[in-house]
């Protein structure tokens, strides 16, 4: 009857969103008077007993280099085997590219209702109801799962990491390797950059920056704050910035702690991708830019004058602290 959390990894390191999933899984277990375990697939470099700090009691590791390549079918088979052997009742994923690939498959195998994009703990006062983000962040839906087994994917940055002192027990889960249905022939990581979907702070630029040669403003500020960089749709469409930086309704939906939009007017489609951000700052010289209505802080002014001053001011603040 336990809760099982899928721990997603990249090159042997646990992803930040998986610490959120672990904390969420531990709290979900607590609500139903049970405990949380985790499954990690692939050869790891991180110390898995650390997951105990996030409330995980036991980690089931399948340490095999061959499993570092992702295949939703293989991963589903392995997780299903562990679910059967531990009799887990609820499985938690991060709502990222891995979670979105595995959770639907596993839902069919386990005959478990799936809620993807959860933003809060389940409400178990009458049944099992989970709040999830819908309409690209413009609303929430409360979804009831009718089945005894349940699967939840948790939106990144929607649930705070809870860190304590536990130490997780690590056990090796031995099983036969399922056959791969796809072959991963190449992986390209954008090295050194913070992945946009997991970033705490995102600095984003729009057409107001007038050209790709001016992106230094965005990247300098991002570097200073350890932030990821993003852009609006027109900027990606005219190839000033790569497509994977496009945030908005048809790009990536993000929910960082801080989103700073420079020279972006804030069309409704752009807002749909960023409106779950905790704090939104808008810098735009047009006081009528719709983005100001959705912002927490704003500066009506010329980005080319304002942003360098902000950079100087942050540098000063950092040198004082």
């Amino acid at each position, binding site marked *: 009857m336990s809760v099982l959390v899928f721990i997603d990894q990249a090159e042997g390191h646990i992803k930040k969103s998986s610490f959120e999933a672990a904390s969420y899984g531990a709290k979900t277990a607590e609500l139903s008077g049970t405990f949380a375990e985790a499954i990690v697939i692939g050869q790891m470099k991180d110390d898995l007993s650390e997951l105990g700090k996030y409330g995980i009691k036991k980690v089931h590791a399948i340490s095999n280099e061959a499993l570092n390549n992702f295949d939703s079918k293989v991963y589903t088979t392995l997780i299903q085997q562990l679910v059967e052997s531990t009799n887990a009742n609820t499985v938690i994923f991060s709502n990222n590219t891995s979670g979105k690939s595995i959770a639907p498959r596993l839902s069919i195998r386990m005959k478990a209702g799936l809620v*993807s994009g959860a933003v809060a703990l389940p409400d178990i006062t009458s049944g099992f109801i989970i709040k999830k983000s819908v309409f690209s962040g413009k609303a929430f839906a409360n979804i009831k799962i009718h089945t005894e087994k349940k699967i939840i994917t948790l939106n990144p940055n929607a649930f705070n990491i809870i860190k304590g002192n536990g130490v997780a027990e690590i056990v090796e889960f031995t099983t036969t390797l399922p056959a791969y249905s796809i072959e991963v022939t190449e992986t390209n990581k954008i090295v050194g950059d913070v992945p946009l979907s997991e970033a705490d702070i995102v600095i984003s630029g729009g057409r107001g920056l007038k050209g790709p040669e001016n992106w230094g403003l965005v990247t300098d500020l991002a570097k200073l704050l350890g932030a990821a960089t993003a852009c609006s749709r027109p900027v990606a469409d005219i190839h000033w910035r790569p497509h994977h930086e496009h945030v908005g309704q048809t790009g990536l939906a993000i929910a960082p702690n801080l989103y700073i939009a420079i020279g972006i007017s804030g069309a409704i489609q752009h807002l749909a991708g960023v409106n779950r951000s905790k704090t939104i700052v808008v810098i735009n010289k047009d006081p009528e830019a719709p983005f100001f*209505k959705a912002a927490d802080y704003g500066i009506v002014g010329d980005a080319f004058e304002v942003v360098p001053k*902000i950079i100087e001011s942050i540098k000063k603040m950092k040198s004082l602290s």
Partner: protein
Amino acid sequence: MLPIIEDWWLFFNYNFTIMKILVCISKTPDTTAKIAFADNNTKFASDGVQWIINPYDEWYSLVRAIELKEADPTISIHLINVGGPESEPIIRKALALGGDEAIRINCDSNDSFNVASQIANVAKQGNYDLIFTGKETIDFNGSSIGGMLAELLDLPFVSHVTKFNIETNMAVIIREIDGGEETNKAAMPLVISCQKGMAEQRIPNMKGIMGARTKPLKVLDPVDVVSLTSIVSFDLPPAKAGVKLVSPENPEELVRLLHEEAKAI
């Protein structure tokens, strides 16, 4: 005589296997639609809402299928939609863009297991080489149909695909992963979910629109499926308190607010 004719047809099929692509299309509110709820917050308020083909289904998955057909005209594109009669205008638009024929399963459900089961039931009989979905719909953001379909049909599944090509009968795929991308190779049949990068948005031309009127659109009754989830209610996020404007002469004040008040830096 009859057995001979049958044998001849087997030979014909063997030599001229036609690739079939099934493109799943969903109806969603327009991207600028006002999001509000009715019936005590249990239903989306659809009055006056303009319906469109889910952008991921249309711009990326359908248009890429059409591009593949343009490169190899023997390819046949079937469209499938799970929805009521109000889905027909968006199905006709997809036919106008370049689908060959369409199936609508007359069923209105918000449960992804139900929707995936309806599509899988048809797909099983269709011998499709490729099944395309969007990476998610812009209304329920479930990202579930592709993976569920793959599992119901026991097929490989690649999600978040940004590039798709066929090279010597193998699918060569680039997909997005957190902070990067990877290249996958897979045999067909195969299910993929598509996103930005796959293709560019198109507008149907007059010839397409005229032609779409007479293309086949078959309506099927749904199979019995017990839904695994249901929507209890909707909420709107709390309204923002309003923007705090800082003078452009004094951006230091913004840094102070972000540090001390918002505790964001």
